Every structure is written in C-alpha cells, then in structure tokens.
C-alpha cells in the first residue's frame, strides 16, 4: 500500500464548531460532553455486560450515567432504558403500551403534530386536530379517549417544529380519568423547558435536546402496564436488543450535568432571542410567523416567507453562514412538506425553522440571531426580486 494514513478530517469552521448554527435539532455537543466522549472512548469502550475488567468499568460508569439521566427524566434508574435514537425510544415505548393493552384494543390516540415515528404507529386512527397555533384540541382528544378499544394516548410536551406547548396537565388528567396510559414525548423539550412533574406513564426524551449526542431515553414508570411481545430482549431492562455504547451515554449524562444548573437562565435568554426573531420576521412583509407567541418552547421559532420556496431561503442564509432548518418540501431528502405545518393550516413553502443551541454550546448564538434579524429583510426582498414575485 502506498499510503496507509487516511486524510485528516477537514478543519472546523472559523469561530468554533457552532458558529452560525441556528439548527440545533441535532446540534454540536456541549464542549464538556465532547471532551467526555473522547475520554470515554479510551475508558469505557467495553460491552458493559462483560465480566472482565474493562466490561466492569464500563458497567460502573454506565450505572452512574443512568442515575443522572433518570433524574433528568424524573424516573428511577431502573425505569430508564437507553436507545439508539429518540425515534427508537418512542417506537419501543409505544409498542410496550400497546402490547400490554392488547386485550382492550389497539387504538392509539395522538395529536396531528406528533412526530412521524409516532404517527406511523397509530394505524387507521385519525389524528386529533390542532389549532392554527398548534395546540391540540383537548375536547376532541378526550372524546377520542372515550371510544372503546383505546390502548394508549401520545402527546408531546411541546412541538419541536413550531415550539407550541401542549396542555399536558389537562390531557394527563383526562387520560387518567379514562384509564388510558399516556406516553409523554419530551424529545424536543428536555433540558430546555421544565418537564411537567410526574406526567406520563411512559416518558421519552432525546439527549440531543440538551447538548448531548442523539440518544433515545425511555422511562417506563414502575406502575405502568407495559411489556413487549416476543422473546425477552437482553439489554436495557429487557427493552433493547443490545447494550448502548457507553461513551455516548456518558457524554449525554455530562451534557445534562453541565446544562442543568444553567437551564433556567439559558431558557430566559433564548426566549428573549426568539422574541427578537419573531418580531424581526413578523416585520418583513408577507412573512408568517408560526406557533404560539407566548406558550412555547424558549428556543424554537418557525416562519414562512410567502411566494418563495424553502430551499432558496435556506441556501441564501447558508451563503451568509447561517444554518437554519426548514419544514418545506424539497429542503431535505423528503418531497413532502412538514406534516406539522400542514396540520396547523399554515404556509409550508418558504419555511425557515430556527432551533437555538444552548449558549454553552454556541457562545455566539445571540450574534447569530442578531445577524439573521438584520439580514432577513434584504434576503427576503432580494429573493422575491430574483424570483419575480416582488410585486405580489
């Protein structure tokens, strides 16, 4: 072989890994979580189920991390399992509820703005509608709960695309009244917005929401009727086919530890930045700012630019070194627009979605928001002129 060394990774962007990141749905790691991941790759690489020294060491570290993450979710360590992704955790969590209730029925009640991983598992059941700001219709949800054959209900704490919070307490009370178990999806809110205490028979979160690696966290409260079909799974309280790679779990726990104390302060400053962005976007002619202006996640905002396609807006902002998400069709591998925007009945084209990273992850996030606010009027006017729609 002429050359056995591989090319090094390209250098990161100037200004740090998080420079210009306004799409933290899967953001950069908290710097100390990244350091933990690197150190843990040397220390905790082993399979935690092995009896040898490295295996025991990994197991010990995993147990500690599990305590931290269980505390984050408000469950006991033996109620928590770790999964490869939030989608996996949602899928397994829901499957366990359904299977345990199979004699009652198979219907799963869910709002129309739940994540796709949930909605593909609700079968023929029509999702419960939401208002134009994205709040689930509680009366319709309660009526759906009362129908016979209801196995479970799924509700998110808040929507990760438009930011709107859901009436968790009201739905949890209604579910308890109806005797239907509730899966609470906190995958976009944990670490950014307080978790409603004690709500949900099953709670799901994603370590990526608080500066950790993408990692599914599934809490099943011990009183819940829950069980999976088929032979018992070997790992993670009988809920996973394989033990997690321990360094990822350690990095997730470190991210939580780092973020926990500063969470309220971070949310307050994120809320102010999103307020600024909502005002700046709303001041541009024919830009629709979406989601509840007040009762929302602190760090998420979505708006749609009338007459412009989402791809063009995202590309134009990328030219200015601002990374934003989008719920428009054609902006990712999907050709369908966001089912969330469609459920709200708001524009799906020209969509820009901002998910702020934590300040500890992106020290310049306020500058990035200011830059977006300042650029937006000219970017929108320029694109509309280029597309020949400035006169509309």
């Amino acid at each position: 072989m002429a050359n056995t060394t591989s090319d090094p990774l390209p250098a990161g962007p100037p200004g740090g890994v998080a420079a210009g990141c306004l799409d933290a749905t899967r953001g950069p790691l908290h710097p100390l979580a990244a350091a933990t991941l690197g150190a843990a790759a040397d220390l905790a690489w082993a399979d935690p189920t092995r009896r040898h020294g490295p295996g025991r060491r990994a197991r010990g570290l995993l147990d500690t991390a599990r305590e931290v993450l269980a505390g984050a979710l408000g469950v006991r360590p033996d109620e928590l399992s770790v999964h490869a992704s939030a989608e996996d955790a949602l899928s397994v969590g829901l499957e366990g509820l359904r299977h345990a209730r199979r004699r009652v029925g198979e219907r799963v009640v869910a709002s129309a703005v739940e994540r796709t991983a949930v909605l593909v598992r609700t079968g023929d059941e029509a999702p419960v509608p939401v208002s134009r700001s994205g709040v689930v219709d509680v009366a319709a949800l309660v009526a759906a709960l009362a129908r016979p054959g209801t196995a479970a209900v799924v509700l998110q704490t808040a929507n990760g695309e438009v930011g709107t919070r859901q009436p968790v307490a009201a739905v949890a009370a209604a579910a308890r009244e109806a005797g239907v178990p509730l899966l609470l999806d906190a995958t976009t809110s944990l670490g950014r917005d307080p978790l409603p205490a004690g709500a949900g028979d099953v709670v799901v979160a994603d370590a990526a929401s608080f500066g950790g690696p993408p990692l599914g966290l599934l809490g099943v409260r011990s009183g819940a009727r829950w069980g999976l079909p088929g032979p018992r799974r070997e790992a993670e309280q009988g809920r996973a086919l394989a033990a997690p790679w321990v360094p990822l779990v350690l990095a997730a726990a470190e991210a939580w530890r780092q973020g926990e104390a500063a969470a309220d302060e971070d949310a307050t400053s994120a809320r102010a930045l999103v307020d600024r962005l909502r005002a700046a976007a709303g001041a541009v002619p024919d830009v629709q700012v979406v989601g509840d202006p007040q009762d929302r996640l602190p760090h998420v905002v979505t708006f749609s630019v009338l007459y412009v396609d989402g791809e063009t807006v995202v590309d134009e902002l990328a030219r200015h070194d601002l990374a934003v998400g989008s719920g428009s069709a054609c902006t990712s591998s999907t050709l369908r627009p966001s089912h969330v925007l469609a459920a709200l009945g708001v524009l799906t084209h020209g969509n820009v979605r901002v998910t702020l990273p934590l300040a500890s992850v992106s020290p310049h996030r306020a500058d990035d928001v200011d830059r977006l606010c300042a650029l937006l009027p000219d970017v929108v006017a320029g694109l509309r002129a280029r597309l020949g729609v400035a006169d509309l």
Partner: protein
Amino acid sequence: MTAPERAPDDGPPAGRPGGEPPVVDARGTRCPVPVVRVARAARDLPAGATVVLLADDEIAAVDVPAWAWLRGHHVDAEPEGTWTRYVLVLGAGTG
C-alpha cells in the same frame, strides 16, 4: 352554497363585473408556483371577485388555503380528475 344575489341560471359568479371568472391553470407546477400564479391573478381584482385555480400539486392543498387565510380570501376546494379546483372569493386584502 348560497348566492342570494344571483339567479340560478346566471352561471358561475363573475370575476369582474360582466365577465367569466379568470381561471389560473397551474397544473404541472409545484409549490410555491400555484400560489404565486393565483396571487398574481388576484392582485388587481376587487374584493368580492372570484378567481379559479386549477392545481395538481398536493402541497397546494395546504398552501392555497393558508395563503387565502392570510389574505382574508374565501376558498372552496373540489377534487376534479387528477387535480383540484380552488374557487377563491377575494376578501378585502390584496394579492
């Protein structure tokens, strides 16, 4: 559907006084083109005028009503073959 000020044999409601409603054929185009075209057709029409849009892009099923809501237009959508016929009655807003 009621049109109290119009006799049943008057045919479709007029886009401009004394004329047929303009029909915007955006079949074969994709979002946001159907919305752009119907907005262009609506721009110079008075409140109360009717515009018809034909579109087969399924995203239009969300975006046309969303645009109409923003502008205060009333919209009825009817499937028609492989496309949808959107009948818009313009509100006071522009474009």
